[in-house]
């Protein structure tokens, strides 16, 4: 394979015909000369040999139609190969979701490494490593990356020094490199770019610093910026009335947009989560709801204009970002088929919204939080405990960015819930560009925390079943049409459950916590693979091959 690639690279250098090269590099696949089109991404997971966007398709459901691995045989699932990245993720996890096209995996890693891997063996074709500056800000505290976007023969990747890159997927070479924002102020980027028709959509990290968040669209060919939407309004703009009349406060109001959004191609709307206001825990200098922090926003994909928003946590004081994968589905509510967007929020509530209008259809707690237990008729949470009535969910929240999953046949929403106990002590920070400004400290009772995989009925938000983990967990969830849920825990187990019942059917101890990642699954040579990043490794599983 490597020899074949080496020969292919020579061909590419000589003739610069990349399309034929891809076919040769794809491990014996027919020379189809395939490139990935917008229509391909639009088809989602209908071609089971591919996984073309972070969640598998634009809905964010992370639900595979594959059925080879099922409830009856998953106990035979076995590791096929392990890829060692050789790079550690200080304080965080290996959070990526690989993409796969024609038997080649495209994988981003921590510290802005990336690879093209042979999906049959885990052996690398190429490695990309970005030379990072030694004065990273947010990117130093979270040196992670969640994956590539793909279009044509280009891979799109964001960086810890807040750039967006286009890489040649055949060679890993950089085709263009644009700066999203100045990392020295506090910006970084960690998400997997969302590719839609003629646009690469990205958000920005750094809400713990004095930054102002945004969502951007870029031209995939040139890297030119097509539009920018700011997550904190300018003075005089709608939403600015929810902030103090102080341009300096607005200019550093936070509102990171650091997690992947979803897309409805029919409505041509992008759904994106917005993070905490800054300072995180100290709010005396930013009275008001602080829009559009801690909100879900629907943006016009063509122009970036705001169509609607819903704020989950007005005037947040607990770092309960709303940076979650929005999950789109069409479900029957009250005898009517509704286009909805669903998410389980860091504040402990599960929400269902009409994704055309933003109307709240359901908001109910999925956790044991004492912060609030219901949403009032005005659509705002009724706060019962501001922290004076006992501990609250910690700043990592009752769930977090790691992917949930939705099984449309069972109409169950699966998420990893965290039950924690924290005391917030706000203190006024000094605002210094490039220095984090949390605005206080948090005391977490380490003895009280645990997690659970929970299955929620999306019509009611009621708990159908749960499986407890002994400690707070950061693993995402993937489901398959064969009735399986793949999840994981902080102790390193990669686990398969029966979707309908929560029965644990199989597990494998990966040796390191599964943190921020969820499984990806695809077909290759008639065999279903399931991949999970854990620690410094990417592990591929499949059913044992039948041997004569």
């Amino acid at each position, binding site marked *: 394979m490597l020899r074949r690639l080496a020969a292919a690279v020579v061909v590419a250098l000589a003739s610069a015909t990349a399309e034929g090269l891809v076919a040769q590099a794809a491990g014996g696949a027919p020379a189809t000369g395939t490139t990935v089109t917008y229509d391909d991404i639009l088809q989602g997971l209908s071609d089971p040999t591919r996984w073309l966007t972070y969640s598998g398709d634009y809905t964010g459901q992370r639900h595979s139609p594959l059925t080879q691995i099922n409830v009856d045989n998953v106990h035979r699932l076995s590791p096929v190969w392990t890829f060692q990245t050789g790079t550690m993720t200080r304080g965080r996890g290996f959070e990526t979701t690989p993409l796969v096209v024609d038997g080649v995996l495209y994988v981003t890693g921590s510290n802005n490494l990336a690879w093209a891997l042979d999906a049959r063996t885990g052996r690398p074709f190429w490695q990309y490593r970005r030379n990072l500056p030694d004065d990273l800000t947010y990117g130093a505290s979270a040196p992670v990356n969640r994956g590539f976007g793909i279009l044509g023969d280009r891979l799109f990747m964001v960086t810890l020094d807040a750039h967006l890159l286009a890489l040649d997927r055949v060679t890993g070479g950089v085709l263009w490199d644009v700066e999203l924002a100045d990392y020295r102020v506090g910006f970084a980027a960690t998400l997997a770019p969302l590719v839609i028709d003629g646009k690469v959509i990205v958000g920005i990290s750094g809400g713990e610093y004095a930054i102002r968040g945004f969502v951007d669209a870029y031209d995939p060919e040139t890297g030119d910026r097509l539009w920018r939407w700011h997550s904190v309004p300018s003075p005089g703009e709608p939403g600015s009335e929810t902030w103090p009349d102080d341009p300096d406060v607005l200019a550093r109001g936070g509102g990171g947009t650091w997690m992947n959004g979803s897309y409805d191609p029919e409505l041509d709307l992008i759904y994106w989560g917005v993070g905490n206001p800054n300072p995180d825990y100290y709010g005396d200098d930013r009275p008001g709801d602080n829009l559009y922090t801690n909100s879900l926003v629907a943006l016009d994909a063509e122009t970036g204009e705001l169509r609607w928003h819903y704020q989950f946590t007005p005037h947040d004081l607990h770092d309960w970002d709303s940076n979650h994968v929005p999950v789109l589905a069409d479900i029957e509510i009250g005898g009517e088929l509704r286009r909805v967007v669903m998410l389980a929020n860091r504040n402990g509530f599960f929400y269902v919204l009409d994704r055309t209008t933003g109307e709240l259809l359901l908001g109910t707690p999925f956790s044991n939080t004492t912060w609030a237990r219901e949403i009032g008729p005005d659509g705002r949470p009724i706060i019962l405990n501001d922290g004076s009535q006992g501990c609250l969910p910690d700043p990592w929240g009752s769930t977090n960015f790691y992917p949930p999953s939705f099984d449309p046949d069972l109409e169950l929403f699966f998420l990893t819930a965290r039950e924690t106990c924290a005391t917030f002590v706000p*203190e006024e920070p000094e605002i210094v560009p490039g220095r984090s400004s949390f605005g206080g400290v948090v005391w977490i009772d380490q003895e009280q925390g645990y997690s659970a995989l929970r299955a929620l009925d999306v019509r009611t938000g009621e708990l159908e079943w749960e499986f407890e983990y002994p400690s707070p967990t950061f693993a995402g969830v993937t489901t398959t049409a064969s009735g399986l849920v793949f999840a994981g825990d902080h102790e390193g187990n990669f686990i398969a459950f029966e979707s309908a019942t929560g029965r644990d059917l199989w597990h494998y101890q990966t040796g390191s916590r599964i943190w921020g990642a969820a499984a990806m699954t695809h077909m290759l040579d008639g065999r279903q693979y399931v991949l999970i990043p854990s620690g410094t490794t990417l592990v591929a599983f499949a059913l044992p091959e039948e041997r004569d």
Partner: protein
Amino acid sequence: MKLIPSALLAAALCGSPAMVGAQTANPYDGNQAAMRAGRALYATRCAECHGADAKGISGPDLTMLWALGTDDDFVFRAVRDGVSGSIMPSSSAPDTEVWAMVAYLKGVSTVSPVETDAGDAARGLELFESTCARCHRVNGVGGRLGPDLSRIARVRTRDVMTREIRDPSASVRAGYRAVSLVTEDGLTVRGAVKREDAFSIQVLDTQERLQGYVKETLQEIVSPERSLMPAYGPSQLSDSELDDLLAYLVSLVQADPDRR
């Protein structure tokens, strides 16, 4: 919380930053303003792994560094250079900021030696051997079910040691929580939980055997939120006996003050 820029910190506290470059002694040792600045710096750069209270989450407990014999310079170099083979990174922060963090950490360290005139260490030794040594080890002798107590008087105040003897279940360190298991053969096993995940549990049993179990093979797992150690109230251990025992534990570190 005030984040103090390094230049201001140096100017306000100590004069020229050049004075603090390669020194082995902390120029901010005991300086309250520096310790406050160090606390803020610690909260943003270290607390994620070492905890807001410096007692450790994924990284180690830092409140015991000095108690275990570490000095300021060692901590400074650990922050500056990182810890090889771990996820602890090196730091390019100015010396002033690192020394401020060192001053803060030293301030929260449980370093105060136990001052006691009460008690008879020789009688305490007898008590220790008859009562404690089955589970606790001192200088290589004794049991291993509980923590090694050779240097305990360096890392615990007298009040804390008293509380841990009188009411050991009030706070149980990770690795010492009691568990009672019933195996598939009907055998009851008691011990301390060393590690646990959703499917397995790793135990040091009361016979000091490291035993791993797959949970689904066990008939029962009872995990009382308490210590294996019984409470020694005044009726089990009088106040004067407690003084003797503490005097013995203090004598262990007084006899060998430099040992880490």
